[in-house]
């Protein structure tokens, strides 16, 4: 069937900010989808609040709305654009939920908008547990058995029917209260008793436990002619009970016979047919009882997902692109396989390698934690190898979490070890390695962990081999065997007591080198046109076609983590685009399957490889690039830069030594002095005594951090000697580097971020951003606004001039980010980083100019005067305001205090774009999910320093019709200044206290600025409760001020929407994005 011609304009919904559970995979899918729709001649409209995405680049969709993803804003966009259809299946759960909400409010009917990809009833049937269960029973599929009990009389029969363990769920209780797992009859009786008491409807659901069963996923596609293909099967190493996003997973499935697999495929086909997924991709999860082979269906996602991104990268099949084409009416056989170009898309990829995905956890921020069915990882690394063993090792070293492959955890006694093996956690796999190394049998480990013995036997082979390495002569044969098992040079070095460099030299001298093989969707059956490579140790690789012209390698940013996410991938993709536009070839190296950079058509050549020195050096040797770009991928490539330079690899743009000069505190301090630029007083201490001396000289409070950190890790503000000593001790334990950096903390200063590009002669200040929060909150967690909204022109002029001089002095060629603090009119430089910053995409969207692309051209030898419109070069700023707000993951981590500090915790960001600051701030808050109230009671509890300021705020709130609530001391303070406030008890002062009031939903906004020193327990309880009840809680005074302005705007007038393409018409310079010769 040909494409539909009754549709001309299609609205695509993005997924908003990166959050845990929804990463940059939806930038990959949305970008692919938009490109595919455009290719077919449709006019495309996009709504997405996340500026750090490629899809929100103004050249991807025809009309790009960076607006909050709420039904109200969606309606405004629909009213303005009048699309005939909306495609919600590429934007994750966010887009699906938003579409359902819009449909339920009648918005889609009102404007006659058709849902493509999945009809409303399909979404409902797939998402509603009851409807789903009924549908599955109708087609005779097996589900976990369950039954409802309303009293305790028939439990014996229930136990017999379900078998232990039994999951007990009390109906209609909040957050699963009253539920649990019963392992024997007494436990069942007592749990049911409790659950019945807690359930307001006196109903308890008893469910068969499938924890520990084998878990599988099938990624499938179906078109409207009922053609059905499985793109990829995925088997989880961690059995049921761990969220699939947190599991180590393998593609294809390893331990199913063909009959078992084909029956699962048959089931999947029946599921999609019954649910009614007609066009596009979806995934279906199954659990299999390892003892009997009994198979139950768990769930279906009627949309592309994180697993689809993984399946796409694992097979080379572009699921999102094909899904978009199916949605507009094509059938699979009408579409070509983009990899082979010669065969159609209606086939099932055959792969001749093994893919392993490993999750990246934010353990450095939130510690080690147990895993359950709610996802907690922040990113993932994928690796391709010829065997599971090789791919596992590559995936684990690709995580950049300190392990060089499949390695052990800290040594503990056998009993604790077995406990760690039996408890799913962020470090379980490393405990499994330790257990195997200790000689604990595969059977025993399988018994406690429920990990399939197949995986454990593969792991045991690795452990056994490594044990044999110790003391062995490293000849070519042994080295080759080690490399074929995926061991990194670093692992071999450690096992044999050599240095990594020595192993590498020896290995290379003995000719033990990797080859590169192709990911081609067809296991070599047909010639393939798409150069997508992985390394392995085999006698021969696939031929790498040579290509005329310059070749530039771009090092990506690896797995997402807090502090290093989609923003850097955005820059890498921009770099590839820039190179393509100037006719140079781009070679992308990355191991993150969620990204646009690892898409088959983002670069001219893709190496899906870990970003370690070893892996990168080998690719450099295979490709011999004319230059390597290290400044776009965040800290990952920067960590390799010096070693690459030393190895003679040509680095493009700012030289690593210059990057190092900016990071070296002494060199940088000397430079600032020479340039006459102020910096907070600082010192480096190697001992606690020295730290005390420095801190006393500078004066408290001081900002402390270990040297060499990322994302503000372990950065703290310290107020006295005792706290400093405590910090020094913790830093010593946490890091190998004994030294601590101590800076004067500029309390209550305004902070600024500047992104600039330098070509060696000129410096283009691409964007100056003013933080909403005061200094002391990590810039990645701080909201910021472009252009600055409150600073005097003189200070801004000085900031621009400082940036110019710093960039030239540091010999920057490319990007530089400088952070400033302004206190009492004085401008201080906090730090300068000659590389892409997290804010580059935000600045690009706000300024309407492709900052990273321009930086790439500069690195390639072009001049800013030719690239940047002269008005922009001279400092013209947009006539509108853009506000960036950070999105935080606190809700996923019980027990963590949801307050901002010097250590970065956010996972993503959103952008509010409007004519002035209050409006753009209001939009940014709404986009971040913070629902600023327009009325109700405001709870106020502020530290003493903020009390004068709060009076102003409180008066405004009162004028706007809010009532005030406060604990005794703040209430008294307010009343002394003529503002009456309702008194509420502090925690421990009696009932009801402030937390009770929150729980009764008696408050619509919480203003709680914690005092600088240790956060007090009641402050924590207030913030945590507000978070869990989704009541906005603002923890610093400058944000409070901004929020009050925004509330005034929301109350005052209707908000409007404008696409980027129209906003840019108001810029004081042209925004032609193409390269001028």
């Amino acid at each position, binding site marked *: 069937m040909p494409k539909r011609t009754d549709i001309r304009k299609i609205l695509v919904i993005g997924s908003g900010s990166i959050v845990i559970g929804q990463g940059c995979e939806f930038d990959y899918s949305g970008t692919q989808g938009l490109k595919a729709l455009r290719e077919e001649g449709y006019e495309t409209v996009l709504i997405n609040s996340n500026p750090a995405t490629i899809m929100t680049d103004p050249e991807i969709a025809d009309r790009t709305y960076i607006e909050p993803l709420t039904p109200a804003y969606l309606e405004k966009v629909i009213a303005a654009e009048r699309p005939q259809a909306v495609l919600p299946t590429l934007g994750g759960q966010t887009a699906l939920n938003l579409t359902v909400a819009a449909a339920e409010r009648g918005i889609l009917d009102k404007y006659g908008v058709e849902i493509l990809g999945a009809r409303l009833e399909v979404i409902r049937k797939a998402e509603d547990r009851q409807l789903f269960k009924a549908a599955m029973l109708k087609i005779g599929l097996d589900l976990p058995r369950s039954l409802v009990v309303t009293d305790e009389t028939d439990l014996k029969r229930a136990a017999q029917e379900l078998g232990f363990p039994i999951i007990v769920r009390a109906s209609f209780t909040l957050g699963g209260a009253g539920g649990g797992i019963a392992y024997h009859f007494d436990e069942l009786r007592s749990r049911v008793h409790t659950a019945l008491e807690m359930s307001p409807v006196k109903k308890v659901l008893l469910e068969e436990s499938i924890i520990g069963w084998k878990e599988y996923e099938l990624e499938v596609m179906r078109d409207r*002619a*009922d*053609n*059905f*293909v*499985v793109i990829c099967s995925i088997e989880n190493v961690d059995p049921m009970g761990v969220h699939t996003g947190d599991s180590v997973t393998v593609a*294809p*499935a*390893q*331990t*199913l*016979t*063909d*009959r*078992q*697999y*084909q029956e699962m*495929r*048959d089931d999947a086909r029946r599921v999609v047919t019954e649910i009614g997924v007609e066009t596009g991709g979806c995934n279906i999860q199954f659990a299999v009882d*390892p*003892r*009997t*082979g009994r198979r139950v269906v768990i769930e279906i996602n009627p949309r592309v997902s994180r697993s689809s991104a993984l399946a796409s990268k694992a097979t080379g099949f572009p699921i999102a692109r094909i899904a978009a084409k199916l949605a507009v009416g094509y*059938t*699979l*056989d009408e579409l070509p396989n983009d990899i082979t170009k*010669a*065969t*159609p898309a*209606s*086939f*099932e*990829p*055959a*792969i*001749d*390698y*093994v893919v392993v995905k490993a999750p990246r956890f934010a353990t450095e921020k939130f510690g080690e934690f147990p895993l359950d069915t709610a996802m907690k990882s922040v990113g993932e690394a994928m690796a391709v190898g*010829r*065997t*599971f063993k090789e791919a596992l090792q590559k995936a684990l070293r690709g995580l950049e979490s300190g392990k060089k492959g499949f390695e052990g955890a800290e040594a503990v006694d056998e009993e604790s070890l077995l406990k760690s093996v039996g408890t799913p956690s962020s470090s379980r796999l490393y405990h499994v390695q330790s257990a195997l190394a200790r000689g604990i049998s*595969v059977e025993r480990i399988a018994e406690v962990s429920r990990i*399939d*013995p*197949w995986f454990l*036997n593969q792991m045991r082979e690795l452990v056994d081999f490594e044990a044999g390495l110790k003391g062995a002569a490293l000849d070519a044969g042994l080295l080759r065997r080690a490399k074929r098992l995926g061991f990194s040079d670093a692992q071999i070095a450690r096992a044999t007591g050599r240095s990594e460099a020595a192993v590498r030299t020896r290995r290379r001298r003995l000719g033990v080198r990797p080859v590169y*093989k192709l990911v081609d969707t*067809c*296991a*070599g*059956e*047909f*010639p393939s046109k798409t150069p997508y490579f992985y390394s392995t140790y*085999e*006698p*021969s690789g*696939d031929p790498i076609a040579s290509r005329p012209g310059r070749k530039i390698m771009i090092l990506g940013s690896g797995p997402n983590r807090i502090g290093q996410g989609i923003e850097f991938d955005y820059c890498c993709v921009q770099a590839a685009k820039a190179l393509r536009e100037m006719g140079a070839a781009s070679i992308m190296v990355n191991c993150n399957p969620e990204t646009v950079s690892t898409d088959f058509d983002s670069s001219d050549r893709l190496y899906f490889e870990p970003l370690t020195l070893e892996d990168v050096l080998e690719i450099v040797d295979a490709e011999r690039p004319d230059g390597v770009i290290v400044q776009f991928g965040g800290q990952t490539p920067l960590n390799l830069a010096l070693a690459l330079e030393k190895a003679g690899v040509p680095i493009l743009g700012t030289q690593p030594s210059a990057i190092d000069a900016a990071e070296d505190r002494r060199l940088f301090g000397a430079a600032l002095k020479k340039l006459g630029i102020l910096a907070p007083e600082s010192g480096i201490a190697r001992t606690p005594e020295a730290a005390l001396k420095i801190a006393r000289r500078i004066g408290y409070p001081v900002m402390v951090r270990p040297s060499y950190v990322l994302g503000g890790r372990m950065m703290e503000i310290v107020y006295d000697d005792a706290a400093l000593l405590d910090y020094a001790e913790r830093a010593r334990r946490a890091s190998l580097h004994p030294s601590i950096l101590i800076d004067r903390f500029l309390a209550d200063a305004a902070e600024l971020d500047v992104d600039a590009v330098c070509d060696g002669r000129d410096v283009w200040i691409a964007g100056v951003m003013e933080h909403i929060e005061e200094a002391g909150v990590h810039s990645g967690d701080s909201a910021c606004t472009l252009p600055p909204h409150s600073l005097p022109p003189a200070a801004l002029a000085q900031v621009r001039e400082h940036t110019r001089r710093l960039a030239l002095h540091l010999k920057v060629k490319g990007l530089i980010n400088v952070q400033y603090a302004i206190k009492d009119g004085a401008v201080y430089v906090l730090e300068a980083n000659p590389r892409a910053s997290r804010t580059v995409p935000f600045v690009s969207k706000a300024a309407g100019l492709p900052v990273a692309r321009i930086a790439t051209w500069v690195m390639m030898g072009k001049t800013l005067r030719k690239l940047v419109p002269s008005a922009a070069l001279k400092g013209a700023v947009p006539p509108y305001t853009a506000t960036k707000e950070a999105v935080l993951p606190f809700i996923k981590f019980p027990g963590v205090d949801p307050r901002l500090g010097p250590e970065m915790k956010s996972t993503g960001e959103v952008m509010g774009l409007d004519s002035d600051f209050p409006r753009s701030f209001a939009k940014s808050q709404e986009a971040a999910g913070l629902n600023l109230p327009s009325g109700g009671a405001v709870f106020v509890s502020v530290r003493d320093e903020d009390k004068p300021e709060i009076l102003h705020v409180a008066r405004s709130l009162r004028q706007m019709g809010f009532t005030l609530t406060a604990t005794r001391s703040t209430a008294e303070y307010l009343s002394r200044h003529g503002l009456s406030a309702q008194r509420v008890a502090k925690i421990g002062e009696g009932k009801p206290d402030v937390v009770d009031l929150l729980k009764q939903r008696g408050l619509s906004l919480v203003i709680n600025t914690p005092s600088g020193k240790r956060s007090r327990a009641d402050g924590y309880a207030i913030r945590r409760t507000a978070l869990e009840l989704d009541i906005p809680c603002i923890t610093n005074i400058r944000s409070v001020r901004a929020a009050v302005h925004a509330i005034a705007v929301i109350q005052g007038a209707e908000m409007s929407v404008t696409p980027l393409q129209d906003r840019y018409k108001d810029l004081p310079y042209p925004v032609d994005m193409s390269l001028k010769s």
Partner: protein
Amino acid sequence: MNDKAWLALEDGTVLEGRACGAAGETGGESVFNTAMTGYQEILTDPSYCGQIVTMTYPQIGNYGITAADHESARPRLAGLVVRELCRHPSNHESVESVGDFLKKHGIVAVEDIDTRALTLRLRERGALRGVISTLDGDPKRLAAKARALPSMTGRNLAKVVTCEKPWEWTEGSQPKPARRVVVMDFGVKYGILRRLAAMGAAATVVPASTTADDILRLNPDGVLLSNGPGDPEPVADAVETIRRLLIERVPLFGICLGHQLLGLALGGRTFKLKFGHHGSNHPVKDLATGRVEITAQNHGFCVDLDSLPKEVRTTHVNLNDGTSEGMAHASLPAFSVQYHPEACAGPHDSRYLFDRFAALMDARRAAAAR
């Protein structure tokens, strides 16, 4: 376990690996199969008689050997080439490891071979004759042995794998089967017989050389022309039998070699493909419905459609290379497909063809009763 083994091809390629099956030396035509599961079905598929099979999926043997997935009584292929063979299989149905199974049945196999490089070579050069040896590592001698092997073309391998005397398939049979099917065994897979049983047919398997009269004496509702190894042309007596059955208007359903033999019986020609179709992911379009089915394939020869009389129409087309995958006669109750509707290994998309066969038989019987 570090016993060396070598694979040599007629073009002089010699690859060293490790023995992972029986010791000895074996020769055959080298082909590759891209299926990621189903090695057991491939090992026991009689169609692989005379062939050395390279599995493109690198880890083979993960779930061992099960009792329920044999496609014939014993492995028939000449040899097996894999990247890595699993020593510790895991599956609740597993009864033994592939290595033990191969040794038990005397199948020579080699692992630690760069199977992708080998596959690319076979893709470029076409199916090559090859030798696996655990005894002789001399490259020149081995390559010479490969060159000395007979070609696939012109060999009647069906004769080698067919049954000696007629037998009844009983597994999964219904108590009172509604139809009787005679299966001409050119190397039939149990998977086909299981499908016949499932559709309610009693299946009598007869040797390839059985005459039309002997078949007709069994009073079948239909005859299934089975899959099998090698070149269809030398299986001349069977072609003659099929011609007689066509004249008698017995409903016929041909699969793979059976399809090619039907093509010959209808007056067509067959030709050899460069490296054949061997895998579980080939898209085939049913021209009658427009639906695409993902099919299991295993053939090196193909029917030349242009050579067939105009009463024979193409019913199915391979979407990868446009080759014919199925045909039906306009007036005679005969149809056939080049691929494997029983799958095993492979997706179950094409099982509807057995229903078509049943319908054809039922219609024929209804017509006869009138």
